[in-house]
């Protein structure tokens, strides 16, 4: 059915030219389509993919480096903050101590002032009392002596001299008594 009519077959090692030509035409078309259209297209896509993958890796690396630097920055800031806090605590302690000292000194000073003022007041009161007492005692004594001796002791000059002498003697006596005690 499928055999040629000739009884002697052609040697299978001898090419039949139409077949060679058909083969070459087929191959030529395949080559042309691959070389001009399909392989450039796929190579472009492969390059793009390569670039995309490379780009992705680069991005990831960049992100990692950035994260690292941010972490270091953060750590540095944290350390600085800790240092600052310690310094502030130290300063506060020192300031507190100084304030307490100052307050103590102020208290001491005020106390002394108050005491001094009290002393001065007492002294002034004592002096006022003494001088008023001296006048009253003088007057009372003169009045009493005048009445007793009937002699007018109205002469003020003499009167004051006498009183002063008396009081001085009295004071001297008091001082002596105090010294002898």
């Amino acid at each position: 059915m499928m055999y040629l009519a000739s009884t002697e077959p052609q040697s299978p090692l001898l090419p039949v030219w139409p077949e060679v030509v058909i083969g070459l035409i087929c191959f030529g078309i395949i080559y042309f389509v691959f070389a001009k259209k399909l392989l450039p297209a796929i190579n472009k896509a492969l390059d793009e993919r390569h670039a995309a993958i490379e780009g992705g890796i680069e991005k990831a690396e960049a992100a990692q480096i950035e994260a690292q630097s941010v972490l270091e920055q953060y750590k540095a800031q944290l350390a600085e903050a800790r240092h600052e806090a310690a310094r502030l605590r130290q300063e506060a302690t020192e300031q507190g101590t100084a304030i307490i000292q100052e307050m103590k000194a102020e208290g001491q000073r005020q106390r002394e002032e108050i005491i001094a003022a009290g002393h001065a007041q007492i002294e002034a009161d004592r002096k006022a009392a003494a001088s008023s007492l001296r006048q009253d005692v003088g007057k009372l004594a003169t009045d009493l002596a005048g009445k007793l001796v009937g002699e007018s002791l109205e002469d003020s000059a003499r009167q004051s001299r006498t009183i002063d002498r008396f009081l001085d003697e009295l004071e001297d006596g008091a001082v002596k008594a105090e010294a002898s005690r």
Partner: protein
Amino acid sequence: MSADPTQVLAFETDCHLFKGCGFEGPSVWSFIFEPIATVGPVEINKPMLLAVIGSILIMGFFWLAFAKPKVVPGKTQMVAEVLYDFVRRGIGREVIGKKAEPFIPLLVSLFFFVWMLNLWALIPLAQFPVSSVIAFPAGLAIVVWVTYMTVTFKTNGFVGGIRNLCVPAGLPKPIYFILTPIEFVSNIFVRPFTLAVRLFANMFAGHVLILIFTTATWYMLGTLLGTVYATASFALTLVLTVFEMFIQALQAYVFTVLTATYLSQALEEAH
């Protein structure tokens, strides 16, 4: 027994084992076809038709895969990319190296065209390896020969090209008296011949083997004992078919690798 092999196919005989009838094995006639149609002066036969359909299939598949390539590939593109990468990296870069890029389309076309021609042996209804018709391997061998000769003389100039083809470097001088003629004949005449015949003979032999065991299966059917034999023969047909699948891919690979090797040698600068 009908003695005229030009008239009958083995399957069309009623000739069976134990019926006083000899086995008619396949012959060269199995590789010669009557024209199916005539286009102008050319008579189209089955191998020609299969070569054309095969070319359309290759281009169709790769067109689907690569015409609108995506950075994230679909299934077809992924498969095609693996195949393409196998030829580009596994053959081109591996054998030729950095200068491979201009020859990648040639290697890719050769590999898939040869593989397709071989594959026809297994495709139902076709079941004939187109590369077992010498014309097809011969045509491709001519293409390869022209390419590597052109590359040799383009790279090295005329004298350098002759040196490249005939005078392998780094040998003691007396050896060249023997070696130069051998190299000359080998590189210029024997190479394209062996390239074509290797592919042709492998596919021819493979097809003959499968034919023998298939026709034998048919021949031995009929009696009980014969059916046992036929079963064994059929099993062997299946084994051989699987083996042929391997050989088909291997021969396509060998053809392409040898082409790449010749090109790589042609690209070597003169020493």
